[in-house]
């Protein structure tokens, strides 16, 4: 037992150390810094208690609420879209069709394109005057949009661009789907049930753990959206895509207000923690584990 303990620690040490040094350490540092007026360029750093947080919540910093609202809007739009779309695609890719491997590759391909490159592609596609999407729409006599350059359309447009990279979510769904034992489907066939019954009585219940996992990961990822604001919109037009993390980055690295930015980071951490907690709590009623209740 003692020996097992030793080897266990030894072999997990790289992971634990890596986590401690590069994640936990900085987190603790930022928690400490969020209680100070730490400015990178200043010689002296003073402890200011909860001043940073009261400054945030007092309404003095309008961009805090604005960026929070924008980010919530983005999450509300994106999470259902990602889950439904990637689940649908996974269902299709799970069919026994010819060239399945090729389709799977194609769906996954955008996920390995560097974020900057795909952002550039979308900037071209969504260009209001020359872009492919507006050209097609106007050719079909459908209304066009200013997409990323319109105040109302910018967030939906950003959601659209991120849907391109759902390949890894699809892969996880596929793994969940392939874990469903065939005999359940055969049982329904014997009972005379069709495609829809299979989906609603077997497939969906059996992949609820996967849906659960993907939902959590998508919520976390959506709250942390940054690249799109950094590359596509720079927060514009009129601050309508000032995502929370982009605002945080600007505060920390452009204005050098690291203490204040740390406070921002911790608020986001708590928000994400809260939503993850909610999903976990509700999961008891809708996530089904074949091996019993293991949440």
């Amino acid at each position: 037992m003692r020996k097992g303990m030793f080897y266990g620690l030894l072999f997990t040490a790289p992971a634990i150390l890596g986590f401690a040094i590069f994640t936990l350490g900085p987190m603790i540092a930022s928690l400490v810094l969020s209680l100070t007026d730490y400015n990178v360029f200043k010689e002296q750093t003073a402890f200011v208690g909860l001043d940073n947080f009261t400054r945030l919540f007092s309404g003095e910093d309008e961009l805090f609420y604005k960026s929070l609202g924008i980010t919530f809007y983005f999450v509300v739009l994106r999470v259902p879209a990602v889950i439904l779309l990637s689940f649908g695609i996974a269902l299709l890719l799970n069919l026994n069709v010819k060239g399945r491997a090729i389709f799977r590759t194609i769906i996954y391909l955008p996920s390995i394109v560097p974020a900057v490159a795909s952002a550039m592609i979308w900037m071209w596609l969504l260009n209001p005057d020359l872009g492919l999407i507006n050209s097609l729409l106007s050719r079909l006599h459908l209304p066009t949009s200013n997409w990323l350059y319109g105040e109302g359309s910018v967030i939906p447009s950003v959601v659209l661009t991120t849907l391109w990279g759902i390949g890894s979510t699809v892969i996880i769904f596929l793994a969940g789907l392939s874990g469903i034992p065939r005999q359940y489907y055969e049982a329904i066939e014997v009972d005379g049930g069709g495609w829809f019954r299979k989906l609603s009585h077997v497939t969906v219940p059996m992949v609820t753990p996967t849906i659960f996992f993907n939902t959590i990961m998508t919520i976390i990822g959506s709250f942390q959206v940054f690249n799109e604001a950094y590359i596509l919109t720079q927060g514009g037009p009129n601050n309508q895509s000032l995502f929370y993390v982009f605002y945080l980055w600007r505060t920390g690295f452009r204005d050098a207000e690291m203490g204040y930015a740390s406070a921002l980071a911790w608020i986001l951490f708590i928000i994400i923690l809260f939503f993850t907690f909610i999903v976990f709590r509700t999961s008891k009623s809708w996530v089904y584990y074949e091996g019993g209740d293991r949440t």
Partner: protein
Amino acid sequence: MSQPRKSVFITLTLVLMLAAVLSACSKSNTASPDTSASSGNSGSKENIKLRMTVWGSPEEVAPYKKAIQNFEAKHPSVKVELQHIAADYDTKLTTMVAGNDVPDIAMMESGTIAFPMAEQGKFYNLQEFLDTDADISPDTLVPNITYSLEPGNVIGIGPGPESFGLFYNEDIFKEAGIEPPPSNVADAWTWDEFVEVAKKLTVDTNGKTADQEGFNPAKIKQYGANISTWWGVYSNFIYSNGGDFISADGKTFGLNQPEAVEALQKISDLMNVHHVSPSPVQSKNIPATNVALQTKKVAMTVDGQWASAGLAQSKFNFNVGVMPVMKEPVTTVVCGMFSIFKSTKHPQETWELLKALLDPEASIDMLTAGTWMPSPKDWYTDPALLAKWTENLDARPSGYKEAIVDVILIKGHQTPTGYVKNFNNIMDLVNPALDKVWLGQQTAQEAMDSIAAKAQAQIKGRRDIKE
């Protein structure tokens, strides 16, 4: 039995981590004063190593290398390590400062982190060197290329001043039979004359121009003008109209005042009333100035003189005139600057390096290519020196000397980033509001009034006046 041991182990690790993190912090807080204290006596001349950070394209970095070579040849005991940070320069420099790993000399930009750093005393006051140096002084440099935290505290000197001009495609004017923009400042177009010409040169897909009946602004093939919505460009016209970002006493927000509002409104009108210049949305389709002019997507464009490098490579008949004048002819002077960090152990050598970097001989390739302008004044006034970078060059068309060289010396205006305190935070309010103006959704007066109170709260004064 293993449970407590494990938690002890983890706790121990955490404590060690925390200690390491905190000690790293405190190190950066104490180390700087020590080094600056010892900087006075850098008597030993052996193996001095200076570190320098710059941004820029490879072509722009080449002259730095050349300047460093010249400098090292003259100072055999000094080695210069050039660190080229191509992307996210400010983020990386901020991180370097936080980690107490600071270069001796760095390229800095007045609009971003230079002043926040200077306010915390990170830079040498270059005035001390300028006062005693035999070779250069503020009078030997082009005006408006030194940046000061306050009068008498110079934090950076620009190696390559830049000003703005009205670049145009000569062929478009010839074909339309219109007189091109004058290059002499005395003959400069008024704003109305400029608008009239721009209308004649804005053509829709049916061949109608913007001053004709039946002109379709939704299908423009060629824009008469392109005035971008970057502050660097529109500030020219605010100054020209007698306006400013901040009042002369540094106490009042200036962009909602009549002169500035009028200039902003006139630029917005170009896009939304006269339809002769692309709106911010449309300008996403407008390529870089050289391509836009060459492909006749745009007839004239207000751009920095650095555009002449790309224009020269594009091989077509381009030229440059003076910008239209609202009330007074003015050009905004923008440039990056070299700053010397207080933490350097060798301030004198670093100063010598800075001087070598300002030497136009080292950057002569960039001068002749069209990207840069020299910073010593005699390169503008001495005909022999002036000829070196303005004559018989693709990048220097016939109008260049009058429209750019003459104007920067006599009509140059300091960039707002150089004297408006808290510029970034003010512009965080101004830029989103201006988005609505450029899109024609609000008048300049409405937009600037709507943020005036908040902007006023961000006003912290001017750097160029004593308080």
